[in-house]
Every structure is written in structure tokens, then in C-alpha cells.
């Protein structure tokens, strides 16, 4: 601290740096360094390793300059952790296709930065080059803009079709053919939002009236049928989060109050199962509840991970939690509690044999990595230029 109170030391610091850099040993008999090529640009593997995450920094204070960083969480230093980035403008959303090696980003431009004509665009990023390889422009701008979501840009049908959620506030889903990169259809989803993959070629949406609506599509993206489920929750009194984790075709939707609704998405129509408790009676007395933005994710071993906080109340549901609880979904059993270093706002879980949990710590907007099996804290990812890394994605979101 003293060095910042001492007003003359800063310049001195600079000067000493210079001296240090020239005071090393040297061997003048070494051959000179060769001339190096200019114009070299790095590339990445077409399929990202399990330890890599996509970190979506919506830049809440500079939304025109949102960023998605590709982060290798297995590395120790920021220079090794950061593999690259791309911009996503104005509260965008992303999706991924493992098969195509592509990342899809729904974003919005204005002809004069923050004003002028609005243009909604799906930008298709090549995972290996991190360069744009195509785009799809909305005929009328209407894409969903808000806090980042996992199921607002969703590939389905073995990644032949891409679904992008719209909100004007009328709700619909734009359907894009990923071979031709053209919009093939727009399906209204009255009163329902988001696009959770359902069956071979369909999706479900959560409805304000406490139902799920399942939409079946034909191969060309045309609408076959829309089916509404029975009412299974009350969005006033017992709301569920729009965030969910998929395990073997079942989507687990947590409720504000600490239950989880398993929804079988393997058929043409979502089948809502019986909810079960995430919390014990004692924990309920302490008002332990789920909370956060990207608050739930799954690993490859049948577990889902969810941010939990005590003293929950009306108003705490978006604030994150102090612990991550891990559940074996099929057994309805909690298998681990991870005490976070400070607090968590969003999380994502890596695929593969050794699940790792990456958590946004909102106290300093760093990311913290935890061992998903032992709960051990591994390391932090910080100082990567982030402002508000509000949504995390495992490198493949199957």
C-alpha cells in the first residue's frame, strides 16, 4: 500500500523495470535470432478438449461490446488459459454444434452503434479459426434480448436445424437450415418461451400458464404439430426456472422453492414427471433455495449441479448461491456439496471422465474451478479482461 501513497515511486518503478531488463547475463557468441514471418494467425482444434469452456461476458456496462472467451481451465496462467475470443453484440446468446465445429451467436447491430437501423444477425463462428464463416440476417429484427440463456439458440435434428428464440414481446422461434444457412420457418409459440430440444426434430417451450408446449417439425423445418401439456406448476406461486440440465433426454427444471421437475424430452411431446425435493426439511427451514443465472448444468455421469443459497426469499432467486449441490438425478440423491470460496452466480460443468465445475464469482467477476467429484477448489481464472461473465458453457453443449 505504501507505494501508492508515495507519489514519486511510480516513475521510479518504471525506471527500475528498464534497468532490470538490461542487467541479465549475455553470450555474444550465440548466432543471431532468425527473421520471423509476419501475418501468422493461430488456430484452435476443431473439437475443443473437455477442459475448455465458453465464457460469455455480456459486458453489462458496455453491451455493445459483449465478448465470448474460449478458456482452457486446465492451465495455470491467464496466458495459457485464454485461447481466443469473439464479440457478441447486445445481450446475445450462443449455441454450439460439435458435429459441424461451429458456434452460433445471435446478436444485434445498429447502423450507428447504439442508434440507427437495427439488424438481428446469427453469426456462425468456425471453432477452429474463430473466424465468422457465415451469417443469417433476420428479415425483421425480433430476437430475444435479455440475460444470457442456454436454450435461446439451440441446434436440433443432429444439428441440421437451428432454433433461435424471438420476443417482441410476441414469442416465436426462427428455424434455420444449417446446411444452407437460411431461415426456413418461423413458428409462433404463443405465451411460451425458449427452445428445449425434444424428440428427434422438435422443441419444447415453457409457458406462462404453467405448461410446456412441444413443437414437432418436419425435416424442412415446417410445423407438424404443437402440443400443450397439462398445467404442472403455477408461475405466480410456485415458479420454475427457465434454466435446466439435460441428462439422457430428461430435462431437470428446478423450482424457486427447491424442488426439481424431471421432464422427459425423448418423445415427440414433453412428459412431465413427478417433482422431488432438492432440500431436506431442515434445509427448507433454513430457506435453502436454488438461485442464480446459469444456475444448473449436468455432467456426463448422470449428475446435475445447482447453485444453492440459504435464507432464500422473494427476490433472492437470481442472486446465486454460496454452495453448489450435486445430485445423482436417477437416484434423486445428493452426492456432494461444494462450498464456494465466496459466492457463485452461474456455473457450467465440463464433459468427459473428470467433471469440473466452473463458477462465476460475482464478488470480483472471476471464475473458479472446482473438482466435480471431490468438490475441491482447483484454481481461479481471472484478469482476462472480463466485465460481467454472466453465462458459462461447457465447450460442447450436446
Amino acid at each position, binding site marked *: 500500500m505504501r507505494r501508492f501513497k508515495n507519489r514519486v515511486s511510480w516513475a521510479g518503478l518504471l525506471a527500475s523495470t528498464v534497468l532490470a531488463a538490461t542487467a541479465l547475463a549475455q553470450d555474444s557468441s550465440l548466432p543471431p535470432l532468425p527473421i520471423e514471418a509476419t501475418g501468422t494467425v493461430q488456430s484452435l482444434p476443431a473439437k475443443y478438449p473437455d477442459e475448455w469452456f465458453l465464457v460469455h461476458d455480456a459486458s453489462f456496462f458496455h453491451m455493445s461490446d459483449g465478448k465470448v472467451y474460449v478458456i482452457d481451465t486446465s492451465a495455470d496462467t491467464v496466458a495459457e488459459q485464454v485461447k481466443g475470443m469473439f464479440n457478441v453484440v447486445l445481450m446475445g446468446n450462443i449455441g454450439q454444434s460439435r458435429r459441424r465445429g461451429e458456434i452460433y451467436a445471435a446478436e444485434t447491430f445498429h447502423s450507428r452503434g447504439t*442508434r440507427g437501423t437495427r439488424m438481428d444477425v446469427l453469426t456462425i463462428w468456425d471453432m477452429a479459426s474463430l473466424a465468422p464463416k457465415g451469417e443469417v440476417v433476420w428479415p425483421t429484427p425480433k430476437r430475444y434480448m435479455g440475460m444470457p440463456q442456454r436454450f435461446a439458440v439451440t441446434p436440433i435434428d443432429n444439428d441440421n436445424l437451428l432454433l433461435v428464440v424471438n420476443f417482441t414481446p410476441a414469442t416465436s422461434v426462427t428455424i434455420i437450415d444449417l446446411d444452407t444457412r437460411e431461415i426456413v420457418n418461423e413458428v409462433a409459440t404463443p405465451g411460451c418461451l425458449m427452445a428445449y430440444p425434444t424428440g428427434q426434430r422438435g422443441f419444447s417451450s415453457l409457458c406462462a400458464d404453467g405448461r410446456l408446449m412441444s413443437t414437432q417439425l418436419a425435416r424442412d423445418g415446417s410445423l407438424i404439430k404443437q402440443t400443450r401439456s397439462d398445467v404442472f406448476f403455477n*408461475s405466480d406461486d410456485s415458479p420454475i426456472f427457465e434454466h435446466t440440465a439435460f441428462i439422457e433426454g430428461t430435462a431437470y427444471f428446478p423450482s424457486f422453492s427447491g424442488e426439481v421437475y424431471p421432464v422427459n424430452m425423448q418423445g415427440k411431446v414433453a412428459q412431465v414427471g413427478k417433482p422431488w425435493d432438492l432440500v431436506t426439511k431442515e434445509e427448507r427451514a433454513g430457506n435453502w433455495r436454488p438461485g442464480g443465472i446459469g444456475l444448473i448444468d449436468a455432467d456426463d455421469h448422470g449428475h446435475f449441479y445447482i447453485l444453492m443459497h440459504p435464507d432464500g426469499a422473494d427476490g433472492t432467486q437470481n442472486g446465486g448461491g454460496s454452495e453448489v449441490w450435486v445430485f445423482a438425478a436417477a437416484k434423486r440423491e445428493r452426492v456432494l456439496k461444494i462450498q464456494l470460496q465466496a459466492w457463485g452466480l452461474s456455473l457450467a460443468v465440463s464433459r468427459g471422465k473428470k467433471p469440473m465445475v466452473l463458477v462465476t464469482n460475482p464478488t470480483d467477476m472471476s471464475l473458479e474451478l472446482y473438482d466435480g467429484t471431490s468438490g475441491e477448489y482447483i484454481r481461479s481464472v481471472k484478469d482476462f479482461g472480463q466485465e460481467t461473465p454472466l453465462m458459462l458453457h461447457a465447450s460442447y453443449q450436446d
Partner: protein
Amino acid sequence: MNFLDDLFERRSRQLAQRSSRRGVLKQLGGLLVGAAAVPLLPVARAVAAPQAAPKAPKEMGDESDCDYWRYCAIDGFLCSCCGGTKNSCPPGTEMSPITWIGTCRNPADGRNYVISYNDCCGKSSCGICLCQRDEGDRPPYRSDKTNDINWCLGTASAVYHCSTAIVVGVALDKGAK
């Protein structure tokens, strides 16, 4: 020790406020289908205060404070801190006509008022007085109650700047949200 004060103030703000795109502005009505519509408000239009009334309508508190009564369901940057006021936009921005409605209790008269949270749009994040109060907030599928959506809809620009809180009536009952 200004450095420290500053730090903790900042951490505090981050903890309390950065955790969500609080609804900023929200939408009238529930199931809007196909196109924007203007549903009926759960509002009894307040009678204008009589000119010769011995008592004047009253509010209390600091409108640049997140705790101010009107902000019970706001989420975003307070326009009061950005060159606007609690119910007007900063210079050069445009007020969104599509809003979310909250019901807040005025502690000065004990009444519940319907508050329209109109976003001001067309310039980038004001960045000041970020205020997150998630009371009654619901996920975005419940669009009439969500604060996770960008409500700069129906404006020339979709870029969010700050949020106002405008009295549009007295609530018929406390439950109306």
C-alpha cells in the same frame, strides 16, 4: 483508507446488484400472442388531487436510492442518476412504450400504486446506480413479470440506457402485480 472504502463499496454493489439483468422494464399483460397488444391494467385510475385540498399528495425518500419506494420491482440503472428523473428519461434517449408493471406501496400514504417501469433507450448502459430488486420477479416465460428481458421494444433503438418508475394508478388490491 479511501482505497479500502472504495473497494468494499464496489464489492457490495457487485454482490447486491450485478447478479442479474433485473427486469428493467416489463410488459403489460400476460399472454401476448402474434403481435404486441395493450392489455387492460389492473389499475383504478387515480383521481387528480383536488386543487384546494388541504393536504397534498406525498412521497418520501431519495429517488436516486435503490430503496426508494417506487423501485420495488425495478431492475437496471436508475434514470434519476443518469440525467433523467424517476419518471423521465435522460436527454437524447427515447422512452420505451412497452413496459412491465409493478405494484409498490407508498409509505407516505400507505397506498399501493401501479408503477410502470419504462426503459430509456438509444444510448448504451448509463452505468450508474444499478438497482436490483427481484421481488415478484419471474422467469422470462412469464413475460409480464420478468425483469431479465431487454424492454427496449417498440423504440427506434434496442439499446438499453436506464429505467424509470412512473405512477400510472392506484392498485385495486395489493395482490395485483
